[in-house]
């Protein structure tokens, strides 16, 4: 089948035609448009943090956590930028989504925007791989359709960044028209940009977008909505994950040896039917090409050159 073939090509980091990418993006739009801003997911489910274009580590992630055939996944965003295989990583997730719609939930991260990807690598990657920006445009259009959060068994709230002073109940997120470039302020921006910190009230974020929030805000949010945990990503954790505020919040990071040089391990968080948390830690591996030969991850050189 065509989709299986595409998945195989993507896993090997091979080139897809522009038309094929367009089809994938269109199909994804159709699926995502039926999802709410906050989607509901059942246990058991595995929560994954930032991927950042590290295709080979994403493949390891699937390998270590059961694989999409058997496991349900929530990805907390930041699929692209930094790594050298943003396109393949994002498209692979979309293909899985098309292939197994109820097994994959994709949440938008702060890197899934036109503005950020122009600076942090995804745009350049597409320009190098295709010589024009079409494929980048198709993907950016899909970014606009991605959900802003997910709720597991009505008890765990998943989001890329964190909380927003403009959001006290989930209902308030539902009334956002998410199909837009991430704004520079407001609820949608905060959900994708905020960070937990040791602060006693909403504070300015050094990132210049979103807020810092502390245990008070987390407690209140959990209480108001009847949740027990906020699962988010967005910040590098050397140990792969980090629980804060008496276990009321966890940061999950799924890009090992981030940027191919940080030396960190990665983690995914499995939530079982009793809502028990099980972390799986994994390390960066030597990437391989399709036939098992080791490769050195690098950017693809520019194609033609004219004098």
């Amino acid at each position, binding site marked *: 089948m065509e989709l299986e073939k595409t998945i195989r090509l993507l896993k090997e980091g091979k080139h897809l035609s*522009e038309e094929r990418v*367009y089809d994938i993006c269109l199909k994804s*739009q*159709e699926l*995502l*448009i*039926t*999802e*709410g*801003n*906050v*989607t*509901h997911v059942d246990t058991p489910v595995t929560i994954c943090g930032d991927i950042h274009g590290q295709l080979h580590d994403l493949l390891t992630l699937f390998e270590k956590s059961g694989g999409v055939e058997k496991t349900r996944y929530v990805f907390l965003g930041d699929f692209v930028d930094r790594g*050298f295989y943003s396109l393949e990583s994002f498209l692979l997730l979309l293909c899985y989504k098309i292939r197994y719609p109820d097994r994959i939930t994709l949440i938008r991260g702060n890197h899934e925007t036109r503005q950020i990807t122009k600076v942090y690598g995804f745009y350049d990657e597409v320009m*190098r791989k295709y*010589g*024009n*920006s*079409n*494929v980048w*445009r*198709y993907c950016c259009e899909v970014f606009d*359709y991605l959900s802003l959060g997910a709720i597991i068994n009505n008890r765990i709230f998943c989001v890329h960044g964190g909380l927003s002073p403009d959001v006290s109940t989930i*209902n308030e997120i*539902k*009334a*956002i*028209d*998410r*199909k837009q470039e991430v704004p520079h302020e407001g609820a949608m921006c905060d959900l994708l940009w905020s960070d937990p910190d040791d602060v006693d009230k909403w504070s300015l974020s050094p990132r210049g977008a979103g807020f810092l929030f502390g245990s008070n805000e987390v407690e209140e949010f959990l209480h108001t909505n009847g949740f027990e945990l906020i699962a988010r990503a967005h910040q590098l954790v050397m140990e792969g994950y980090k629980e804060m505020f008496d276990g009321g919040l966890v940061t999950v990071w799924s890009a090992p040896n981030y*940027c*191919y*040089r940080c030396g960190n391990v990665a983690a995914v968080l499995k939530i079982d039917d009793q809502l028990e948390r099980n972390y799986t830690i994994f390390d960066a591996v*030597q990437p391989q090409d399709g036939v098992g030969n*080791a*490769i*050195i*991850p*690098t*950017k*693809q*050189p*520019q194609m*033609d*050159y*004219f*004098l």
Partner: protein
Amino acid sequence: MTSTNTNNQNNVDESFSNTEPKRVKVYVLENNEWKDNGTGFCTGEIRDVEEGDEITKSAYLVVSSEDDQKETLLRSKVEGNIEYQRQEETLIVWKDLNGNDIALSFEESIGCDTLCEFIIQVQRHIENSISLISVKSSDNGIGSVHEIVAGPVILPSTDKDQNTDTLYDALKIVNENSIYDYMKNETIEFILQSSYINLLIDHFHRAEKGKMIKDLFLLSTIIKTLILYNQRDIIELMVDDEHIMGIIGILEYDTEFPNLKANHREYLKLNGPCFKEVIPLENKDLELVVKKYFRLKFLKDVVLVRFLDDNNLNSFMDIILDLKTCIIDWLQTDPFLDKIMNIFSTDDDSSKKRDAIRLLHQYVGMSKDLDPIDKTKFYRTLVRKGLFNVLSYAFSQEKDSNLRILATDLIITIIEHDILLIHNIQNEKTKDTAIDDNFPPASDAITDDMKLLSILSTILLSDKSPGLMEQVVQALSTLLHPDGCLAGTDGEFSNFSSISSINGFDVNDSDNSYGMDGIFNSIDRDNNETEANKQLKIYFNKFYSQIAPFLFKPLMPKANIDCSELDDFLLIHLLKLISFIATEHTRLISRKFILENGILKTLSQLIGPTHILQLRLTAVRCFKNILNLNDKYYHRYIISNNLVDPIFELLKDNLFEDNLATSCILDLLNIVSLNCTLDSGKENDQNAKHNLTEKSKSLNKAKNNFTILNKHIIGKYGSIIKELSSFPFIREMFEFDRITNEIEKELDIETDIDRISPNDTDTNKSDATTENCKRSYSELETSENSNSNEDVSKFELDQHVVTS
């Protein structure tokens, strides 16, 4: 064996001689106490010493007493491996070869400078093993900072027979030398002056042949360490023709991947030197520049991508930018560009033309991060030399969407820099030459400055490539963005303070409850418009008369185009453009166009279920943006024509779903609710109800665009919306509706709306609303028609629209 920075002793500079005397106090350490040996004048002396046949030079620090010039207080030979320390500004301290600790305390720091310079020269030319160290207390006051100023620097061995040991030593040396600037600079000098890199490359070939793995990794680490020196000359040396392949070969080995070898050389051999020449490049210097540019990018993006830190990366970018500037400069002076442009006016085969487009695209892409002035210069040259012929070819003869995409991308780069550049030069050109008229549509009616817009519109409506469509929309939005016009026409950013007046699109300014105020303001401001403003006005007027009717034809009911036949994705793009012109352009012009052509009626139909959801929601958003303008005319028009009906049909179908359709419509309702609160201010205030004047004020405010819309929505679709009462802003909508009704009743103000109970049929209701609208127009007209002619004609238009 390692070499040091020993220079030929005989090579002493002629000017290197005795120094001027400087006032100084001499101290000698005796029994752990510094003893004052008197005050005098210190000179650095050079003496020729005869040893057999040879004359050698020796250096001394001499202090003669200030009381008696003949009395010598100190005579110390500068020799051996003496380490001189300059402590702070005025002190030089050392231990001579006899073990005496001596200190010179200078009266002025300038005196200390002179003698330190002397010591440096002596180190360079006579006594290489001495050294001078500067010692300063650190910024935090704790401890001190030592910095080598002069001294022997150990350098890597230049022995022809390199081996693991020499390489290991070399690595250690280049690492250690990178700590102090002095040693680093000496090492850089050494690398540039000696042929050390060649030596390493020679050994690399032997090591690779002999599979000397250790040596290969050492070589790679040495080269990387030298790259970390972050020195432009070294980096440029590495990428020149002589060294590039060797360097890249060495870098194929990486201790991070001990079992792997990259294949950079193979790539460069297969693809790198295969620079495509569209026409032969005669300038060989430039060829090298282009190659260096390519190689540096290759190093930065591929070979060293995981290795470079931000500092290195910036150095690479700086060099690359310099090379780019050089290339772009050259293009404009050499006839090369003329030859490229000529390809398009000849019958050359199309593959050559295609390559020429690719080439131009590459160079325009290269220009993106140049200095704005350089960019303007380059783009003007391009346009003058005939860029339009290139575009004309790409858009009319070339059928390959990929090339059209490149051409569009090229235009976008230019117009994002300065949207008026192309059409200004085009105007100036048309004065002397006629341009060939290949462009559809009906080019007779299209003036030259509209040609680009016309071409882009034609492509959008005819080309099916989704990528190209998106690009064209981006180009159109850029060309039609009033802000873009802020960029001056001479490549400098002129600041037209009154420029926003021509656009009049400032929503906040023009739309506090009475939508017209702002517009009149902006018209007032228009009276003192500048020449540039006038040109812009003409430009936008031409767009609405020549381009818009063609571009938006599919959205005009008059055109009798069956929308179901059209590509939904094309319609999405057109709707986004409508949203754009409605919110960003001068309200008077864009609204006139949108309402006169019945475009909102088509929009309303597009929300219907025969279209893909993406399009339906885009249409909803378009309404949302237009309603958000808080413009009386739009609001009345939309209400009286029942244009929001399909939105609530769509809502009804998705009422119990949680999806993007409900979110999108909820957002719209939230905007309505929010604007009711904002505009009606104290309506919720209980006190206000007890005071009649306050109440009538509230009502006045209550009769704003959004409370009327709220009434319309609640009256007609209240039963649907009730299902969403879990959202506080929905409950507020009902509350507003109730309060408005209450106040109106209490004050016994008879309005058409009031007479209609919610149970009345839709038709009655809308008639009543229309009636109401008409009245509000005539009010406006009598009170405000003393304004300019333009405005009167606009009111006529609006009346026409509403009553028709």
